[in-house]
C-alpha cells in the first residue's frame, strides 16, 4: 500500500542518453514535487505541479522536463544526461488548501548514476 512510489529505484546510464523516472501517488493529493539530493546529501526542490499545472521550476536546466498526465502522476524526463546529473531524485506529494496547512510525503527515491 505504498503512498508515493517511484520507478525505477536505480538507474545507471551513460552520458548523452535520455532517461525517464516515473512517480505515482495514491493519496489523492493535488500537488506533486520533484526534489534532487546531491552527493553531499543536500536536498533541493526542482519542480512542483498542482493539478497537472507547473507551479515551480527552480532554475533547473531545460534538459529536465517534468510531465504530469494526471494529478496522481508526475514523471521526470532527462535529456542528454551529464555526469553532474548523478543524484538521488525524490518525488513527493501533498494536499494544498487555503484553509489548512499541509504535509509532504516522499517516495523512496531513484538513484541515478551517469557514467
Amino acid at each position: 500500500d505504498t503512498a508515493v512510489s517511484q520507478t525505477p529505484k536505480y538507474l545507471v546510464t551513460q552520458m548523452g542518453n535520455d532517461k525517464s523516472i516515473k512517480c505515482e501517488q495514491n493519496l489523492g493529493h493535488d500537488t506533486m514535487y520533484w526534489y534532487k539530493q546531491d552527493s553531499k546529501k543536500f536536498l533541493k526542490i526542482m519542480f512542483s505541479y498542482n493539478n497537472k499545472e507547473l507551479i515551480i521550476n527552480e532554475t533547473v536546466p531545460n534538459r529536465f522536463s517534468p510531465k504530469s498526465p494526471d494529478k496522481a502522476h508526475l514523471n521526470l524526463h532527462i535529456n542528454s544526461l551529464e555526469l553532474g546529473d548523478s543524484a538521488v531524485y525524490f518525488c513527493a506529494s501533498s494536499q494544498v488548501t487555503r484553509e489548512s496547512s499541509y504535509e509532504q510525503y516522499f517516495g523512496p527515491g531513484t538513484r541515478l548514476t551517469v557514467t
Partner: protein
Amino acid sequence: GIQVEQSPPDLILQEGANSTLRCNFSDSVNNLQWFHQNPWGQLINLFYIPSGTKQNGRLSATTVATERYSLLYISSSQTTDSGVYFCAVDSSNFGNEKLTFGTGTRLTIIP
C-alpha cells in the same frame, strides 16, 4: 530565500542515550517537517510541526515559531535511530509551496 541551519552536524551516542537536534530558520514559516533518512536512503516523515509540541513514542518535537527554531528530542536511542535527520520548512505564499531543507544532522548510535 529562507535559510535553515541544523545543529550539530554530527552526533555519535551510545545506545540508550538521549539527544536534542536543533533547527533554526530565518523567516516565519507555514510548514515545518522533520524527516529521518535511514541508511537505505528512505525519507521517513517524523513530524509535521509548524508550531507547538508533538510526541510520538520515544520522539518528540517542539517548534517555537516566534523565535524561529525547532527541536527534535530522541530518548533512549536505539541503533535503528541512526541516519540523517532533516528539518525542512516552507515560507512561501499559497500556491507556491516548496520545502527548503537544512543540511541535516548525522546521528550514529553505537551498540
